[in-house]
């Protein structure tokens, strides 16, 4: 008895590598999704320069699975709005968002995309979350590449917490019969002036 009695056959059995693993389906799906996010860049201003730096070799978001910039919304997973969004581009980003297949996420990069930034005027959307649903807001004017990468990592963390069983996550939030995807009061509330711009009234 003892170790000396172990037959060669038994070691052969244990050295066969298993061709299956056990895991949770949610974990596997989220792991795959979060590590192969294909971004749809929607760059309109200086944030797009930082976005380009993030994608280029020094910062290299390919390290986080964003290997391929998807310039077609139909092959994209995450819309990155980098820069201010004028009202004239609102129907454009909305159409791009509608063309992206589920699952899809959106990152609002920088102060202007998130809130209108310094452009509290007649021509500018006061935060793209009045046009499309947004998952992660990256602050900064413009954010440094590290900031955007942090936002992307946050999005990956968020995706890891999702469940494929939850249909609400994959629900399309379309523009409704009111012509908006949010209630009108909500759009007004989101667009409220803040900071220095509260000193400017609507009539002056």
């Amino acid at each position: 008895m003892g170790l000396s009695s172990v037959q060669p056959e038994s070691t052969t059995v244990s050295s066969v590598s298993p061709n299956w693993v056990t895991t949770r389906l949610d974990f596997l799906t989220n792991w795959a999704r979060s590590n192969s996010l294909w971004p749809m860049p929607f760059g309109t201003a200086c944030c797009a320069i930082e976005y380009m730096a993030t994608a280029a070799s020094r910062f290299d978001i390919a390290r986080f699975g964003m290997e391929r910039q998807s310039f077609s919304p139909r092959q994209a997973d995450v819309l990155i709005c980098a820069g201010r969004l004028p009202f004239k581009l609102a129907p454009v980003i909305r159409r791009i968002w509608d063309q992206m297949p589920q699952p899809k996420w959106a990152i609002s990069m920088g102060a202007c995309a998130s809130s209108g930034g310094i452009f509290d005027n007649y021509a500018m959307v006061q935060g793209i979350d009045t046009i499309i649903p947004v998952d992660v807001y990256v602050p900064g004017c413009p954010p440094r590449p590290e900031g955007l990468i942090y936002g992307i990592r946050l999005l990956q963390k968020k995706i890891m917490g999702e469940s494929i069983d939850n249909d609400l996550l994959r629900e399309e939030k379309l523009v409704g019969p009111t012509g908006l995807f949010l209630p009108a009061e909500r759009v007004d509330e989101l667009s409220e002036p803040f900071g220095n711009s509260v000193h400017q009234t609507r009539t002056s």
Partner: protein
Amino acid sequence: MTAGASSMSPSVAPLRAEFGDAIERTAVSCGDTIVYAARERAHDVLAWLKDAPGQRFNYLTDVTAVEYRDPERQLEVVYQLRSLPRRADLRVKVALDKRAPLEVRSVWDLWHGADWLEREVYDMFGVVFTGHPDLRRILMWETYSEGYPLRKEFPLRGHFSRAEQTRQALAANPEAHYSMEELSIAEAFDELPSDMRERLARGERGFLK
């Protein structure tokens, strides 16, 4: 002769001789000569400046407009001219009474480069350029209905609520930025006569006759 007359453009004296009272006044500002032309004769003045042998202002640098905070003061349409052969500049202004319809004759027939410049002035100030071949908004979308954003009575954030602005923006068709003329040319390109195809390939625009 006033003190500023030494830097006055040499074009002013022949302009006065040619057009008399149609040259309402002249001024020198920061070394640039400004000529105020009467609205009715403005097109003649500009045509003369472009073609007269001693003037040859063959390049239209810019067309823009100014509205002053003083509500009594007239709105001015500004033409910045440049003579490439003579290396000389001249600014011509046309004052428009704000109580009357803001109308001035287009200079598109003199300088085709005025096309988009006049469209921008129309878009931002509401000045109508009569005779312009394609007077549409250029910066704001074509169904924009809040008014003319650079006018003084226009509130910074616009007239409508943000929700209404967002609703109207989302309702706009992002592809509706081409004129019927541009679209018809694109569709009919293969059926055009060869000389017109060549002109279009060179980037020239014109009317389909």
